[in-house]
Each structure stands twice: as C-alpha cells, then as structure tokens.
C-alpha cells in the first residue's frame, strides 16, 4: 500500500516511459539514410534494411541505455553521491581498456575484428574483459578517492583514472594497428554496429543485473539512514556493497562492449527519474533503467535524423547534452 499521490506519480512515469519507448521504437525503425516510404515492407531491399539494421539498432540502443541507466542509479545509491555515474567513476574507461586488450590479443592471433564482432564466443569474451576492466576502474577510482563521500574527490579521482586508462588503451592500439580499427568500431560510442547478436547479449546482461539489483535494493534504502544504522540492522555491508559493485560493473561492461563509451546517460537518467518520483530504490532503479533506454534511443534517433543521410555518432550527442546537464547540476548544487 502506498500513498495515492505517490502511486499516481509512479503510474504517470511508467506510462510516459512506456509511451516514449514505443513511439521512439517506431521512429527508430523509420528513420535512417534509406528513409521511409509507404509500402516499404513490400520492397525486399528496404525490408532487409529495416529488419537487419534498423530494428536491432533500435532495440540495442534502448538496451544499452537501460544498462547505463541502471548502472548510474546503482552507483548513485551505492556511493550516496548524486554525481556518481559509470562514465565518471572510471568504470567505462576500464571497460574500454578491457575491450581494446581483447581486440589486440585477437589481432595478434590474426583474427579479423569483424569475426570478433560476430562470433558469439568472442562477444562473450569482449563482455567479460569489459566487466573485469570496469571492476578495476571502479576499484582504482575508489582507492584514489579513499571512499566515495566527497563528491569533488570522487569526481577528480574518476577523471584521473579515466585519463590514465584511456591513455593505456591508446598505447595498446598504437602497438596493434588491427586493434586501432576495432577501437574505432567499438570506442566511438556508437549504436551503429548493434546487430541481433549484440541485442541478445545486452538482453541477457539486463535480465541478470536488473532483478538482482532490485532484490538487493533495500540495502540501498537502509544506507540512506547512515552506515552505522545500516550495520545496526544486521546488514553485512561489505559483501552487499561488493555484490552491487559487481552488478554495476556487469551492466557497464556489457553496455561498453557492445556500444563503446557513451557518456552521461547513467548520470542523467536517475536524476530525471528522481525529479518526477521520490521513492525507495527498488522503484527508482527500475524507472532509471527505462529512462536510460528512452534517453539513448531518443539520442540515437536524433543522431540519425538530424543531418540525414549523414549520421552523428550517438556518443558525441550524449556527451554534448549530458555535459550541459552536468554543468547545470553543479551550478544548481552550488546555488542551493
């Protein structure tokens, strides 16, 4: 039983996110360099474009955004820090380094990047490497910031870790030209290469991380009362935190391995949700997931449509939009 107003706000948000997802999905199938015309489905060439390029790209963009939105909501709840986000925490750049290392290793064995992108086992390897990289990235950032209490300290540590891991990734790609091509494919922050295989991997990652995060969300609620209060409630804080960091890294790793570095979706989605709905973490985690999906899919449709038939990498668009949002957020925090 929840308050009538809260239930109304919850229903309104659920309706808005569902509607936006459906409308954007339709738009995602219709927008692209080949355009759309009545009777398109009768044309085998265009039908192939719709089914094999636009549809998986649309579904994949939503799933990548959803994973990033979930990772952001987890990070903000876990570190009790409104500026926490997979990109700013160094987990994205860690995941990126993991991907580049796998690409370079594949290249030394004479394997083409394309086969890596299509082979299911290789895809799993990419996600695994991105996951480990994301874990290492978060761990480095937390160690450098000595915990997550100080917003500026955490932000600074995240930037340092991001730059260092990014430089390492650059070094690896310089040593391996084949990996450089792969890096362009994977690291631009683009939804342009998402096929049905990638959608499957992303869906599995979301099917694991979202229910698990939701199951443990009461620990995040308890942490809002303060660490000691949470401990006095008998919560094993160490293991619970570690598990949530693993989920955060898995969500980030899966997203980065398929779509590269896409900034700020993880930061913005939970904020947009909380402006509409103040609720326990179980609800905001699910809503942030959906909001992340809507945000990235909207950016994807925009990036395809703005200068059609030319296309903007979606990572560039989210960075521009999200960067402005971060500036506004920091300004609002300073004036409040």
């Amino acid at each position, binding site marked *: 039983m929840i308050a009538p107003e809260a239930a109304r706000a919850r229903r309104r948000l659920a309706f808005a996110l569902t509607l936006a997802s459906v409308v954007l999905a339709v738009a995602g199938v219709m927008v692209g360099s080949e355009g759309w015309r009545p009777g398109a489905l009768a044309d085998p060439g265009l039908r192939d474009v719709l089914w094999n390029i636009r549809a998986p790209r649309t579904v994949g963009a939503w799933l990548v955004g959803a994973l990033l939105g979930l990772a952001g909501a987890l990070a903000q709840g876990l570190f009790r820090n409104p500026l926490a986000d997979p990109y700013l925490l160094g987990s994205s750049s860690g995941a990126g380094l993991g991907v580049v290392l796998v690409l370079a290793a594949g290249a030394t064995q004479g394997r083409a990047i394309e086969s890596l992108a299509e082979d299911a086992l290789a895809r799993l390897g990419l996600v695994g490497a991105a996951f480990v990289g994301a874990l290492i990235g978060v761990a480095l950032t937390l160690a450098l910031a000595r915990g997550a209490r100080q917003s500026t300290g955490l932000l600074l540590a995240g930037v340092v870790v991001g730059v260092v891991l990014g430089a390492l990734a650059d070094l690896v790609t310089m040593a391996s030209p084949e990996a450089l091509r792969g890096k362009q494919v994977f690291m631009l922050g683009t939804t342009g290469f998402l096929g049905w295989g990638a959608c499957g991997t992303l869906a599995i990652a979301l099917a694991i991380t979202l229910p698990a995060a939701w199951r443990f969300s*009461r*620990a995040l609620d308890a942490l*809002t009362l303060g660490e000691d*209060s949470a401990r*006095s409630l008998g*919560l094993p804080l160490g293991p619970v935190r570690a598990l949530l960091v693993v989920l955060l890294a898995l969500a980030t790793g899966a997203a980065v391995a398929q779509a590269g570095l896409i900034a700020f979706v993880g930061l913005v989605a939970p904020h947009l949700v909380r402006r509409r709905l*103040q609720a*326990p973490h179980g609800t905001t985690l699910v809503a942030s997931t959906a909001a992340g999906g809507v945000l990235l899919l909207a950016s994807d449709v925009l990036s395809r449509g703005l200068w059609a038939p030319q296309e903007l990498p979606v990572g560039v668009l989210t960075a521009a939009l999200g960067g402005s949002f971060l500036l506004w957020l920091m300004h609002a925090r300073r004036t409040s």
Partner: protein
Amino acid sequence: MTRHGLSVLAAREVSASLDDTPVLHGVSIELPAGCWTAIVGPNGAGKSTLLRVLAGLVPASGGEVLLRDRPLQEWSHRERAQHVAWMSQQHGEGAADLGVRDVVHLGRLPHLGLLGTPGPEDERIVQRAMAQTECAAWAHRRMGALSGGERQRALLARALAVRAPALLLDEPTTHLDPPHQIALVRLLHRLAHDDGIAVVSVLHDLSLALQADRLVVLAAGRVKAEGPCDHAPVRDALAEVFEHAIRIVRVGERWIAIPELAS
C-alpha cells in the same frame, strides 16, 4: 530482584577509542530488562561512544560487552541486530526520498534479511510502532517533507519496529517539542515497564533524563555513579560533573534540574 541474570546487555570493564583517542576507560554497567536507564554527562564524556559499543558498532579495545550473558562478538550480525535496536543522532536527512512507512519497515530487516518479504505480522508490528510514536497519520509522506521532530519520530518508530529486547536511543528528543518530549518519556516508561524492554537513552535534557528509572553518570569516559535519582550519591555526582551549574531539586514525586544562575 537480583541483578545477575536479568541483565539484557552488560559492559564489563569496557575501554574504547575513536581515531586512536581513548574515549572510554573501564566502564562497567548492567542494563536490566524492564528498566529505562538514562546515560548523562557533559559533552565529550563518551555517552554516544558507550551506546555504540553496546550496539556492537564500535569494537571495545578492552573488556567485553555481554548480550544475554554471551559476548557480543559471538553473536552473528543478524542475531545481534534482532536483539539490540539502535537509533543514531543523525536525523535521516539522507533518507529524504523514502516514505515514513518505508523507513519504519527497514526495522524489520534484521528478522527478514535482505531477501525476505514482509508478512502480515511485520505489517502489524510496523503499524503499532507508527502508532506508538504518533506518526501513523502521515505514514505516506516523504521524509524530506517532514520537520526535524517528525523525522525523529519516524526514526524512533523504525527502532521500535525491530522489537528488540534492548533499545538504545542516542539523543531521541533533540528536535521534539515539549508535548512530544513528554509523550516520549511516557512511551519509554511503557516500553520498559509493560513490554519488559531494556531501554537505554543518552539525553542532554537533564530534566527529562531525571525521569528515567536509573541514571548512569558518565564523565571523561568513566562511570561516576549509577542508580536512581533518589540516591544522594547519584545527585552529588550529577552536580559535580556539571560543575555545579545545575541544582537538582525535588518537586512533589519528581526530581528536576534547574540552572544555578547566582554565582
């Protein structure tokens, strides 16, 4: 009534440090069931630290804490949490997005664990806890929309919802207006005398603390006196640790503290 065996929580020669600074020096107290004990003393006496050591949140560097005659560290986290409820001095600002009812439900975590789902019995206990601290009327409001006193009553209900045999409260009256302070004193009496709980509170407001069944007078990390306010040594210790800035006088059946303004 013998004290031994009735004690729910006991500290034996407990010493503790915060950031390498010794705060408690060989503190021994018994906290019997069915009794409200108020810990009083000047700033920096170690009152909150003592409460945290009793709750198992700060380790004792010497001596031991016994819960039901068994060392506290031998209990699992969850068992300890089921037996000892603790309410912090913090006032729940971080929980702004949670509803009052969500917060009170967190008190059932020690019994349900993270993965359990609350049943009708948990719901009944949560309702009762909210009724006891008079927050049932705004159970659906967000913590962020409440006044400091209202938030404090919600947090108190959270501690009550644990239904622990030992209830440790750190400054539970800070934000309460006089009617609610008095309601709290009555509630603590009822919890101790009717429900048989060992209630322990740290209180700055001496006049409220003097209404407790027993006082523990703490200064510089040591127990100066303990017992009911009727005992002259307890009153003497109080006057001494507060540098004779207060006078304790009897009004009818009660003791009250008044400021000593004449120098």
